[in-house]
């Protein structure tokens, strides 16, 4: 008997099969993911998701009997009261004797449920989203180089020695210079020994000895491996262009924002954050939050700390302008910005904000997205009417005026319910001419 411990064998043997399965069911899975994402809470995005897809594309058909009709006989255990000839009313949903059979081929086949891991979920969800107009491609500083093979070189480090190439050179040089082969020398020596032992022809012996002498001298003079034979693999460092991009996240945290609105805004930025982190390794993210004054903060503070105060939108834009001036020269960086607000602003600040946006921010931005979060009045008549009549906020009107001018790379969306976050996000960042 042998006992073998296989526990340390590589795990995930069926990973390849799983990927094939996901690829196969791609269409249905993408749809299921979109559907389910509207229901999810933002914290859940860190977890996997159980999804259910129609069996259509992943059905494994086979010839088998249908589950109804015909004459069937069943032998079942546990008789309590029946005698021959008893009649039993037909149970609903198939014969009781074959309950199992019926469910195997019946409702069990309609849907296929399984769990997608977090990575798989995000990959599918964020697929075909991208930052628009990533055009000002700049070569980032020296750190991003890739190494390419670039032929052979006569110098290099010993670890890059190319043995095959070296020996090939050596061989051709030896042939060209007629260096005697060891086998030839050996044969000559053999002949000499024979002649010496057998009292052969003295003249011939003499000739052979001279020839041997010549051979030996020649093989001493012509080395087996000469430094000029040696070749090394050569590698070249090729600078890789990296699109330098920075995303500004501007969020209003003033007192007028209710918990609900803050929640919506944070969800949006959380999604944006996940998206950028996953898809663009070289994107910088700057978090700016504002009340009546704006401050650049770190991720932790941005998402989790609380503050209240009045609302002056232009402060955030000014702060952004300042950060850009200090760290992100627009001619070297692709600049993006996303702003979330409830649309309230000090009324005397509106014109200032508009001119800032139009004259300073938009010219240096590749894309500017504005999300207005609103109270969720869903269901109530007033809310529905309000939305129908487009009860626009001051800031919305102000921004709309700017955005409506031709050639502005600016998008505006309004979000009222957490269900709308995912679709709106997808709208804002959908890859152009992306399928679906």
């Amino acid at each position, binding site marked *: 008997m042998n006992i*073998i411990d296989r526990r340390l064998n590589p795990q995930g043997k069926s990973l390849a099969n799983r990927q094939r399965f996901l690829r196969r069911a791609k269409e249905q899975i993408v749809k299921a993911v979109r559907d389910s994402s509207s229901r999810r809470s933002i914290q859940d995005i860190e977890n996997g998701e159980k999804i259910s897809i129609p069996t259509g594309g992943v059905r494994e058909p086979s010839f088998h009997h249908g589950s109804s009709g015909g004459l069937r006989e069943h032998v079942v255990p546990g008789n309590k009261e029946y005698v021959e000839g008893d009649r039993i009313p037909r149970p609903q949903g198939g014969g009781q004797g074959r309950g*199992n059979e019926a469910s195997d081929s019946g409702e069990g086949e309609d849907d296929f449920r399984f769990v997608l891991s977090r990575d798989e979920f995000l990959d599918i969800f964020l697929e075909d989203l991208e930052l628009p107009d990533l055009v000002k491609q700049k070569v980032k500083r020296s750190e991003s180089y890739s190494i390419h093979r670039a032929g052979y070189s006569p110098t290099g480090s010993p670890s890059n020695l190319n043995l095959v190439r070296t020996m090939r050179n050596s061989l051709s040089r030896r042939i060209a210079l007629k260096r005697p082969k060891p086998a030839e020398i050996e044969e000559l020596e053999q002949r000499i020994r024979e002649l010496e032992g057998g009292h052969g022809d003295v003249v011939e012996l003499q000739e052979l000895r001279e020839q041997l002498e010549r051979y030996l001298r020649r093989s001493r003079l012509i080395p087996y491996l000469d430094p000029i034979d040696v070749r090394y693999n050569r590698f070249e460092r090729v600078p890789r262009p990296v699109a330098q991009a920075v995303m500004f996240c501007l969020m209003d945290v003033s007192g007028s924002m209710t918990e609900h609105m803050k929640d919506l805004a944070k969800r949006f930025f959380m999604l944006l954050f996940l998206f950028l982190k996953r898809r663009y390794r070289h994107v910088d993210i700057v978090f700016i939050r504002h009340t009546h004054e704006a401050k650049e903060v770190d991720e932790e503070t941005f998402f989790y700390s609380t503050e209240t105060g009045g609302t002056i939108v232009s402060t955030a834009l000014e702060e952004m302008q300042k950060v850009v001036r200090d760290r992100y020269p627009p001619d070297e960086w692709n600049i993006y910005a996303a702003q979330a607000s409830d649309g309230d602003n000090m009324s005397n600040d509106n014109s200032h904000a508009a001119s800032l946006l139009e004259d300073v921010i938009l010219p240096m931005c590749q894309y500017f997205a504005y999300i207005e979060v609103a109270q969720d009045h869903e269901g109530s008549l007033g809310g529905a009417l309000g939305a129908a009549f487009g009860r626009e906020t001051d800031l919305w009107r102000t921004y709309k005026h700017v955005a409506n001018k031709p050639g502005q790379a600016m998008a505006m969306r309004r979000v009222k319910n957490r269900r709308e976050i995912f679709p709106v996000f997808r709208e804002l960042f959908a890859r152009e001419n992306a399928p679906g």
Partner: protein
Amino acid sequence: MLNQLSEPGLLYEGADWDYDKIKRVYDAIETVARGEMGLDIYPNQIEVITSEQMLDAYSSIGMPLMYKHWSFGKHFARDEMLYRKGLRGLAYEIVINSSPCISYVMEENSMTMQTLVIAHAAFGHNHFFKNNNLFRQWTDAKGILDYLEFAKNYISRCEDRYGQSAVERVLDAAHALMSHGVHRYPRKTAPDLREEEQRERERQAYQEKMYNDLWRTVPTKPGRPEASTAVAERKALLGLPEENILYFLEKKAPRLKPWQRELLRIVRHISQYFYPQKQTKLMNEGCATYTHYYIMNRLHQKGQINEGAMLEFLHSHTAVVFQPEFDDPRYSGINPYALGFAMMQDIARIASDPTLEDREWFPDWAGNGDPMGTLRDAWANFRDESFVLQFLSPALMRKLRLFQVRNDATEPELVVENIHNERGYRSLRKALARSYDIARLEPDIQIVDVDLAGDRKLLLQHRVTNRILLDESDARAVLRHIANLWGYEVALIEVDATSEAVLKEHTVAGSSVLLG
């Protein structure tokens, strides 16, 4: 504490297992299995795996190495979800019919469970694999792992060469036909020249002996029309009718490329390898369960395992052989472990201590005093259907309170046909045996004709018994796969086996998806 056991003779104590304990237990089990039960086994290889790996093994139909295909990923996704949510436990072991016989045991098992698993898989199943007639005839235990290795490499080379999706399309089609890709009967081997000569001589001698001039005067039937001989000739040429659809397509499909034929062949071989397992589920589990039950009891009697271990064993044993009654919500058909184990125990009882009734029903072997010999003989020479037909005793039918129900779709109610009484025993037993007959469980579908002169339409026939038709949407999907492989139109007619009336017809146009 490692080697100091509180009672001498105990093989282990406590729940933890290690390799020394397993070795000791294995030797003790081997003594019982070989010495007392007379089991004959392949060499054993026991592999310890994690639950993750067990899931992996599940999804690739239990084989340690398998080619890659999305359907295995699908099964894995489902099994994983069920397992993670606690809806379903994992099997304690998986055993592979190979030589050496590989049993997988999980690291989470307690020492008692490992003992049980070794007795069950490494001895019970192992003996069955090595000795049962079907396995001996149909499977090559020594070669299977090498073959799978070859298959895996071959398919991955094909993927590199022809692209994953091209390979996938062929495999999808082949998988759909897997249940109709087995030879049910041994093929005739071509006799060699000497045998042929010998036979010819015997035939000659027989004819000379039987010669009677009188036959010459009997008028013969008029010769058959020309057309039908052409049909017969064509069928003979193509080897029709053929029920092994995969085999037929592999050999005769006109437009497949050699590598596509090889893929069909691989799937067919794997299907053939599992064919005996489908037919002996009841016996195989019964044999293994009886073996572990016998061995664990013997170990306990000999004082080699303690009371605690015995109780743990009985707890899981009873869970395994639990048979809910038909009106129980847990009922999902007859549990092969339960029925198999009950029958094995019943056989042992009849062989050593029969009642008058048993002597009447089983005159050949009742009371022969050799329970193990009788069991070994049954394990070697039967499959589920014939085993039930031969060995199910009236006593057991009474014990399980079996009854037979007829479900006729044309009648408003179900009818109880037979119950466990004097009048019912035989037909009850016959009906139960039929429910294990693979030929009845799987639809009888054959390739009957090819229109070689015309549009090369492939004609399949389903012989319908008891008016049970095929599941329509699946049947159409499979026909589409066949059409992909065949390359031309394919038709399936469902014909009543007794009246020859055509009940239904499906046709799928030819396509060249695979051949482009």
